[in-house]
């Protein structure tokens, strides 16, 4: 009897093992479907103009670096012409971070960077070393580095070219850090909105230098465990080896749970000496669903929801609070509302629907328009809390990028909490987007104000902002300048604000745009959204703002009205 029982149990176990094997096999058995020639042609037709455009952008930027290097040959570093040449170069390459001159030992000797701590003159070191022979081998082209953390802490790549002394001897290098997110995110938005495709870019060694999901940037497609599916590895190998082509592979969809077929076409850009980029266009952009499944909470309900979590966090230990916030079945989930928590350094502490992100640092996370999401949240939390705007993927609309309004509160000086709602009526949620050329115009205009302030003086810049026909003006953009104390020196959108203190000006969400602008400028500058009354109707509209410091006490900015 016992013997029969053993046989039955063994048989059952075998059936169970075989069945589970079949289930596993079934999950992985998704076969790639053939892709029509028409579809490949359509994708190629969208890709090739962009690779041409990126190639031209890179050639232009490199030629500017080379031209500036020749202007600096034989010029002593303490000559004011050096600083002006570097500022002009940075202005003329809007997707650059900073420009710097380094001696033969890779030590920084002149820079556009004035943040001191990371770029101290005579102390800061370049992250890549090139020999004189390598620089000569590049000829008139720039050496393009691999994607890495640059000398000022940002991530991107550098253009490098040699600089010579008055006798024509090698004397050091001129280097410009390039922001790959700024370079590609606008092109990606264009592709998504105009063609329904999306973009990722990899070096030919497999390192991703751009993906719309910032968590993938910097990973190596060949070695990173995230990409170890056989169909993807085959495709990655082909992409790295072949300069152009098409392929299909299986990869996780936006849920990071299910696998789906992704079809790609790619082409190569040679951004300079020593580097190849594969520009990969994919068709995995889900169509945005229009059906509303939930009622969006009001801003008051959003604030109350966060305040409830704040009280909980203040009356429980941090561990208890984070456990409650991360509980998908707990009281801090209410429809589309959930509580997220971050450290003041940008580490994820709570994010109930994406537990895999806990512990991940999101300090450099950017939205498609360059808004550094966590950095804006932290700045707002350090003002005691309030509303923050940014774009992010909406899971209720097939993860389309939509405009989000979040409310954040600091729990103490080390961490903060928040929650957000999607703002459907915002133009950026309605397939409207800011073209990358407009964003480059904004950057150029602000950096031009920096340059002109150095050459002509701040009063001359103020006069140019106030003069609608000055050379500074660019159609559709509204430059302004503000002091560290909140005094508007000039404002092209609201000229009557000149000379007034605007620290106290708030919008309907209680946000002081001027305080935010000053905070952003003091952090080195960058992008932010604002809700402003726009004349002559004085109705509130969202704007995209770019700001940078002119000096320690004066800041320059410009904005574009969204919609």
């Amino acid at each position: 009897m016992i013997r029969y029982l053993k046989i039955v149990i063994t048989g059952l176990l075998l059936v169970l093992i075989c069945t589970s094997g079949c289930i596993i096999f079934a999950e992985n058995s998704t076969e790639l479907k053939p892709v029509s020639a028409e579809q490949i042609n359509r994708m190629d037709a969208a890709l090739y103009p962009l690779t041409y455009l990126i190639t031209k952008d890179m050639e232009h930027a490199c030629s500017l670096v080379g031209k500036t290097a020749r202007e600096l040959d034989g010029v002593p570093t303490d000559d004011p012409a050096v600083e002006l040449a570097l500022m002009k170069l940075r202005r003329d390459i809007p997707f650059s971070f900073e420009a710097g001159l380094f001696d033969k030992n890779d030590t920084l000797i002149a820079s556009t960077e004035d943040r001191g701590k990371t770029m101290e003159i005579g102390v800061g070191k370049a992250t890549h070393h090139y020999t004189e022979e390598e620089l000569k081998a590049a000829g008139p082209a720039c050496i393009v580095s691999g994607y890495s953390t640059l000398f000022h802490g940002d991530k991107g790549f550098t253009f490098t070219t040699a600089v010579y002394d008055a006798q024509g001897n090698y004397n050091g290098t001129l280097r410009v850090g390039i922001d790959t997110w700024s370079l590609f995110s606008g092109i990606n938005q264009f592709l998504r909105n105009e063609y329904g495709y999306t973009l990722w870019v990899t070096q030919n060694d497999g390192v991703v230098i751009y993906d719309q999901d910032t968590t993938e940037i910097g990973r190596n497609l060949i070695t990173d465990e995230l990409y170890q599916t056989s169909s993807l590895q085959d495709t990655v190998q082909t992409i790295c080896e072949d300069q152009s082509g098409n392929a299909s592979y299986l990869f996780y969809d936006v849920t990071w749970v299910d696998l789906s077929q992704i079809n790609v076409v790619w082409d190569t850009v040679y951004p300079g000496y020593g580097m190849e980029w594969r520009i990969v266009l994919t068709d995995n952009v889900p169509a945005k669903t229009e059906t509303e499944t939930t009622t969006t909470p009001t801003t008051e309900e959003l604030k109350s929801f966060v305040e409830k979590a704040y009280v909980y966090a203040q009356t429980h230990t941090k561990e208890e609070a984070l456990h409650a916030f991360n509980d998908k079945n707990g009281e801090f989930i209410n429809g589309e509302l959930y509580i997220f928590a971050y450290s003041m350094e940008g580490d994820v502490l709570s994010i109930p629907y994406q537990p895999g992100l806990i512990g991940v640092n999101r300090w450099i996370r950017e939205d498609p328009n360059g808004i550094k999401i966590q950095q804006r949240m932290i700045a707002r939390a350090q003002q005691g809390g309030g509303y923050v705007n940014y774009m992010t993927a909406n899971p209720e609309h097939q993860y389309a990028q939509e405009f989000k309004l979040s409310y954040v509160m600091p729990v103490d000086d080390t961490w903060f909490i928040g929650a957000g709602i999607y703002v459907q009526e915002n133009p950026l949620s309605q397939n409207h987007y800011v073209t990358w050329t407009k964003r480059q115009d904004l950057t150029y205009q602000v950096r031009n104000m920096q340059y002109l302030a150095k050459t002509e003086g701040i009063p001359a810049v103020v006069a140019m902002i106030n003069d609608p026909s000055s050379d500074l003006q660019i159609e559709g953009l509204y430059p302004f300048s503000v002091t560290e104390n909140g005094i508007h020196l000039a404002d092209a959108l609201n000229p009557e604000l000149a000379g007034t203190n605007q620290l106290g000006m708030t919008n309907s969400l209680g946000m002081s745009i001027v305080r935010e602008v000053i905070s952003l400028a003091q952090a080195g500058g960058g992008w932010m959204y604002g809700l402003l009354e726009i004349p002559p109707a004085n109705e509130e509209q969202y704007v995209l703002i770019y700001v940078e410091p002119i000096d320690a006490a004066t800041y320059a900015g410009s904005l574009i009205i969204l919609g």
Partner: protein
Amino acid sequence: MAISLVITVILILVASLGGLLFGASIIFDQSLNDPDVLVHPAISGNDMIITIYEGGRVTELAQISLEIEGYAPVVQNVPGGATEIVYVGIASQVTGTRAVGVRGIFTDGSMKILKIIDFKFT
């Protein structure tokens, strides 16, 4: 004799330390679970808004003193049942990062610091 004395001393020390830690943990838990008054300061333009949430002595709260580093404290009355006290224009000249303290003054005349936080005004 000497050994038993040493053991007794050690036992007393261990017991004292345990009691101290236990007591500290009770005090800590009580301060978390039952704050005198839970408040939160935030800035809106030039105004500072102190939101009053809850607490064991919230009904006894008579006044709030808002103290911004580098500026004189400003005291405002707390009407019964108030959930928000607005300090209009108090931040009109305030920029940079400063410590902000909120002190509660209760009906029995006692005072207690309810919140201290570093604030980035710009």
